[in-house]
């Protein structure tokens, strides 16, 4: 309370990590690690109809050194796995990963000698998107979910209370 009295109007106080998280969540630089069909849908997301830039994540970087969000789109085979790991390791902290589509999440309907059964066998994943391939709206939804997660990186950041409708009944799906 003390510092706010001293600063008076025109200032507000917060924690440093909140400010950083707030900044980061609107300026994600994705590195598209697109291997298969999902990458075609991602091309749809970055193009003008769905326009991922509305969410501050349109600046696609193909160099892992310049990106902080890895989007793994498509089937990862055993041959590809070490490369994915290498590219992930080359990204600087903090970094996040979205596994897009059934193949990247779990291997999809490819259960055979060549396909990795989900990229979480080799790298950590923050958000999984179901679908084969997911619709562009799902990718945007995943991005929003990731932004929420980034906001929550600060240790004592308040968790949003469940949405309560006017009647006082907790809305379905938001109940904790």
């Amino acid at each position, binding site marked *: 309370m003390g510092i706010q009295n001293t600063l008076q109007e025109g200032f507000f106080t917060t924690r440093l990590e909140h400010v950083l998280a707030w900044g980061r969540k609107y300026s994600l630089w994705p590195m598209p690690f697109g291997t298969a069909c999902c990458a075609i849908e991602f091309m749809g997301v970055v193009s003008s109809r769905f326009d991922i830039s509305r969410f501050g994540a349109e600046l696609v970087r193909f160099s892992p050194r310049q990106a902080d969000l890895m989007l793994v789109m498509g089937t990862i085979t*055993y*041959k590809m*796995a*070490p*490369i994915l790991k*290498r590219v992930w390791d080359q990204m600087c902290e903090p970094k996040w990963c979205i596994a897009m589509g059934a193949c990247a999440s779990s291997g999809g309907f490819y*259960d*055979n*000698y*060549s396909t*990795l059964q989900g990229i979480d066998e*080799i790298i950590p994943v923050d958000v999984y998107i179901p679908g084969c391939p997911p619709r562009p709206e799902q990718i945007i939804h995943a991005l929003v979910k990731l932004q929420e997660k980034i906001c929550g990186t600060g240790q004592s950041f308040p968790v949003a209370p469940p949405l309560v409708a006017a009647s006082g009944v907790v809305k379905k799906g938001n109940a904790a």
Partner: protein
Amino acid sequence: MSQAILEQLRARFGEAIIETHNFRGDETAIVRREQIVPLCQWLKATPGIECNMLIDLCGVDYSERAERFEVVYHLYSTTQKHRVRVKVRLAGEAPQVDSVVAVWPAANWFEREAFDLFGITFVGHPHLKRLLTFDEFEGHPLRKDYPVNRRPKIPTPDPLM
């Protein structure tokens, strides 16, 4: 149309043609292993046949037969607009057949693929190594005795990577 090719083939190569058949309009000639390269050269060079394009080459594993493997060549002629299928039967665990890369450069990768997936060695191939799987991969996955979901180890990337 293609029926005529089979007759010409039989007239020219005689004993080397083991069998011919026609199913759903696809003419097929099964030939002796030793004769495949001269036969392909003849098919490519003979006027009126001119199979100048190798459309496809693949292996098949008939694991219950004595001559277990087949190599199937699909040929097409852009001038005569006809197709013919030539097959070679190979026996043994380490089957071998002469390479046709000298006849059609297109055969290069197709033969590498058949080597990779079936373990068929193409004698005289300029650069026979695995194509779709990686060097450390064990076995030949499209053979019938290879289980579909046997998992390999994650390979080590090569130094250039």
